């Protein structure tokens, strides 16, 4: 550890000043816009206005609902997938994990675009449904909450699976057999042993998926269209269509507060866990 303060500052300050000037200061000013009264002074009237509008309420609740649903769904599927993957032989495990990670390398635009082919009026799903006689006319799946849900789930599921794989691998090897020997059924094994021991991974994955869904732009823009909005696409519309920068600032603030809250929760749980360990 070197002691020279001047040297340390000279090395660290350019990056810090750059990030502050290009990012921090403009964002803080932007966020303050929503609290500025037109006559000078400060007010929260922009926020009461925003939440009294029923369209905004719908979008806000939809964003929360979809983010929560995607998080829960990815946790359920994620556990099943992570279980299956960690029980594979080492060679196969690496290959399958690679396949799970692969989509993360592909542009989200490309990944989301694929769903148009699948969910569109003449897409695979509608073709299959009609061929099987389930429906007569093509269903309207695209530009709906369902489409956004599917798109977000596909986008963020890999993050959850990876978090859970490492959590499951860090779990003591004998925990499950020990619980089985003590007479627990599989449901009890999951609920009383696996879940508490992988809580940290679940929280990390959950936070990534939740904040990712909350702040996703591409998926709702492509799969939700201009009618089924989420907060990010609403923000875009407020700026690009309505030129309403105050509303944009309000939405930005809400998004940041919600993702910070999720991040703080993550840190809390992670440090609570570390404390337990260091006390043990």
């Amino acid at each position, binding site marked *: 550890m070197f002691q020279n303060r001047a040297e340390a500052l000279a090395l660290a300050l350019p990056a810090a000043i750059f990030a502050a000037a290009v990012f921090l200061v403009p964002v803080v000013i932007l966020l303050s816009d929503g609290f500025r009264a037109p006559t000078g002074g400060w007010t929260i009237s922009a926020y009461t206005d925003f939440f009294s509008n029923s369209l905004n309420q719908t979008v806000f609740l939809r964003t929360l609902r979809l983010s929560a649903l995607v998080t829960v769904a990815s946790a359920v599927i994620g556990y099943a997938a992570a279980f299956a*993957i960690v029980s594979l032989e080492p060679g196969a495990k690496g290959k399958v994990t690679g396949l799970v990670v692969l989509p993360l390398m592909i542009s989200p635009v490309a990944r989301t675009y694929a769903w148009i082919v699948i969910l569109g009026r003449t897409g695979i799903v509608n073709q299959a449904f009609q061929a099987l006689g389930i429906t007569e006319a093509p269903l309207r799946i695209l530009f709906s909450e369902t489409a956004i849900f599917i798109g977000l789930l596909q986008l963020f599921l890999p993050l959850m699976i990876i978090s859970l794989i490492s959590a499951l691998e860090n779990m003591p090897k004998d925990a499950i057999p020990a619980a089985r020997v003590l007479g627990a059924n599989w449901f009890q094994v999951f609920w009383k042993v696996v879940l508490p021991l992988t809580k940290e991974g679940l929280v990390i994955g959950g936070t990534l998926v939740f904040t990712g869904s909350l702040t996703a732009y591409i998926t709702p823009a492509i799969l939700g269209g201009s009618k089924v909005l989420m907060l990010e696409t609403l923000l875009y519309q407020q700026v690009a269509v309505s030129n309403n920068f105050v509303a944009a600032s309000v939405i930005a603030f809400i998004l940041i507060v919600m993702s910070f809250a999720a991040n703080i929760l993550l840190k809390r749980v992670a440090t609570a866990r570390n404390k337990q360990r260091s006390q043990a």
Partner: protein
Amino acid sequence: MTARSLFIPITLLLVIAFLIGPFLIIVAASFSAGETLAFPPQGFSLRWIAKVFTVESFRASFGMSLFLAIGGTAAALVLGIPASYALSRYKLPGAEIVRTIVSAPIIVPGIIVGLALLRYIVVPFQVGITLALFLAHTALVLPYAVRVVSASLDNLRSDIEEAAVLLGSSRLGAFFRVVMPNIRGGIMSAFILGFVTSFNQVPVSLFLSGPGVRTLPVDMIAYMEIVFDPSVAALSSLLAFLSIGIVFIAERFLGFSRYV
């Protein structure tokens, strides 16, 4: 017992089909001979792959995205390597504040960063869109650069620098002679991670577009809103293979996944 032994392959099959399937469909659709995007593809042709290269706006926006991904990541490393070094080797006053500031752009949604930059840098200071995009992408990649480079610095013993100094090297010389060669893998990995992140980034660049100045993914979204032909599918496939190829090579030669 049969139920359990079937559980693993079925689960994996479904999950991988869900994650990879859409991508395969896009690849198949890009070889279609038909006029509109459809699956199964109507016939086989390379016309849409060929068309991608003839669309003028794709060529321009590809160039822009490439410039931002390479230039922005390089700039982020130029800023990030010294900062990481200070954070890992020095008793830096306010180290946590510095760490928070440089890694904040990762937490704040990109669309907000882009809008803030537009409103409070581009407009008041008359900054050109290209420069603004460059600044935005640099800020966006900076957290990744600092994280990956810090991790490889933390894995490197710091006493080799003292050893180099005692053998007659200056402090700066010690950095270039014994630190840089040993964190090269980390720097390359940071570069690739930054490149892919920057190249695929959309929200930051949404508001930062002007006449003829657009990043490729934003351009693709704009194009698909107007034209419903398989050229976007073809372009998506090409880009996907490009990034998979880069990451695959990086993994092969650098052990990329150790760093990220």
